[in-house]
């Protein structure tokens, strides 16, 4: 199987025009003749970007889970919930479905994304030949699921806007919302930075 990089061919990342890059080592700074986007055999510094973004996401992951994400005042009760305590509260209240959804979207998905992307980028960097097809499928799954991990932020934003009944019920976002959004955004950027073709680049240097 011949790769584009082997044949000196590269696709524009923007308009998908296949161009002929003569020197495989010299793809820096060239532009697509049609749309003037940069043309590369592979995403530039993909591995560095992914790892850097993953590290950043991981750093924000801790405050996102440790701090309060939402203050709920429902007279006469006042609650300050972290993501996990909110899930356990919902679970204790008997809202198992809702608890499961929040747990999956807000806790599992970010963890999975961090873990899976880390695994993908490391395995690609090590030119692992282990089940590249499965790894590609995992990457696609991450791309799909990733959109949903903002759920918690949306829930908080929605509740904050809707539940404002003065003294009786009020929802205020907590300090964990921003790091949580940061985690989601950074993991999405990381997964976008990842070049799935690297999975298949066995023995090819970037």
């Amino acid at each position, binding site marked *: 199987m011949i790769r584009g990089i082997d044949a000196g061919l590269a696709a524009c990342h923007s308009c998908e025009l296949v161009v002929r890059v003569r020197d495989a080592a010299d793809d820096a700074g060239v532009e697509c003749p049609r749309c003037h986007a940069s043309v590369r055999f592979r995403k530039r510094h993909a591995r560095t970007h992914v790892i850097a973004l993953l590290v950043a996401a991981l*750093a924000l992951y801790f405050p996102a889970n440790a701090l309060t994400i939402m203050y709920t005042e429902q007279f*006469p009760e006042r609650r300050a919930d972290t993501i996990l305590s909110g899930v356990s509260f919902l679970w204790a209240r008997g809202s198992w479905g809702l608890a499961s959804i929040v747990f999956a979207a807000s806790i599992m998905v970010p963890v999975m994304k961090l873990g899976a992307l880390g695994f993908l980028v490391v395995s690609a960097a090590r030119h692992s030949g282990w089940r590249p097809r499965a790894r590609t499928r995992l990457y696609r799954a991450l791309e799909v699921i990733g959109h949903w991990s903002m759920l918690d932020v949306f829930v908080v934003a929605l509740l904050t806007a809707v539940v404002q009944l003065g003294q009786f019920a009020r929802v205020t976002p907590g300090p964990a919302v921003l790091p949580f959004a940061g985690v989601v955004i950074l993991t999405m950027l990381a997964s976008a930075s990842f070049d799935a073709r690297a999975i298949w680049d066995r023995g090819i240097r970037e």
Partner: protein
Amino acid sequence: MSDPFDPSFEELPVPVGRQRRPGWPSAVWLVPILAVVAAGALAIRAYLGAGPTIEITFDSAEGLEVGKSDVRYKNVPVGKITSVELTADQRAIRVTVELQRGAASLAAVDSRFWVERPRIGVGGVSGFGTLLSGAYIGVDRGTSSDQADRFVGLEKPPGVTHDQVGRRFRITANDAGSLGVQSPVYLRRQQVGSIATLALSPDGKRIDIEVFINSPYDRDVTDTAVFWNASGLDVSIDATGLHVDTQSLATVVAGGIAFGFRDSDPPGHPAAEGAQFNLFEDRGHALARPDPTRLPLAMRFHQPLRGVGPGTPIDFEGVRIGQIDAMNLGYDAASHGFFSDVDATVYPERLGAAYAALVDEGQHRGKTGPQMLQALVAHGLRAQLRSASLITGQLFIALRWFPGGRGTPPVAERDGVWIVPTERGGTDQIQDQVESIVAKIDKIPFDAIGGGARDAMQAASSLLGHLDRDVVPTAQQLVGQAGAAMAALRDSLSALRDNVAAPDSAIQQTTRSTLEQLENAARSLRGLTDYLQHHPEALLRGRASGSEPQ
């Protein structure tokens, strides 16, 4: 793959613009650095925001709920309850509280915590808001800079909180009365503070009260201030009528303390924090002139002392100078008689200027107090039980002068106490007198006096009947006759007037002619006498002719 370029790809377009832009592969590391910094900042903020965790023990956790109840200082939430559980010995409730960072100073050693619940007391309703919001833990911030993490909660809100400006004073009382924590303290009927704590002393013999006087009134508490119990009503009756005295309506129910100053005391300096005072039982005792000199006296009475007891006043020349402290019944084997030994305390200062004069005299003569007393006794000073009021039966011991006792028994001393000789009398004499009066009254023959009086009345009655029956008709008859006689008399008088007084009456005319004749006669007589004067010879020779009498 020796030739990587397939000739068939020659028609594919080639990229343009080969300007080499400097790549900054490491720039992306700014993102994780920023993220770490942000996360670190959040962590530091969270760490700084989390205050100390303290444990408070309460007898009851009524109304406290995890996640619902909070800790409030001045009604502002400063912490939250993270757990409520039984202590190991299951006697109390241990509440774990997480204070906010900014409220860390609330965990001072002398801070106090209590559960704020709705309370209804005589002083008013408190904690009303907790009916809706639920109970919370109130905190009074201590002043100590030392921190603690274990506290024993109060069951009631403290009467005085540390943030109130003022001073605390200690008051010792014999009786708590109706006083309680938060009972008011008054100065001139103005509330200036309240009771902060009230507890039995460790030996159980006194009540230790701590009062808190709010600034600026704490400056009014001087070292000469006197405190008294102003609880309830002070009702007194004297010559000017009924007096009802109370500090305020609240003290009638809730009790209270008042303080003031004796007129005799100099204005003192503001008392120091924690100064010690005594609580007098009422205003009168508190403001009474102090008695620095105490003179113990003993008296032996050979008469029953019914109605006399500790507190019975001792009176000298109308001044209450002391009171009885104790009484003991004794038996004299020699005379087979009972007697009463009375111990009393006398405050000579109450004699005022008289005492000063006595002291002066004593110093002048070089005599000690007891010697002066001996001198007084030698002049006839005796103790006597007397009755202050026959109606109320109030008794007192009077120190009086008995001229008959002059020079008799000297003042004896017993255990350093001077014994004042006594005189029988007072109530005994009054009783005797009353008895003799009653006996005399008994001897009066009221029956006989009553019978005589009745007879006299009867005689008078019959006399009146006789008069009515016999005398009155006669009298009427007499009156009628007298009227007729009067009429006749009137007729006679009018006739007399007609006959005599009328100008043309016969009597008048006769009288007039008689008078004329008398006049003529008198004239003739005068002519005769004149002739005879000039012609006395006529008496002998008769009248000469030619010479007419003139």
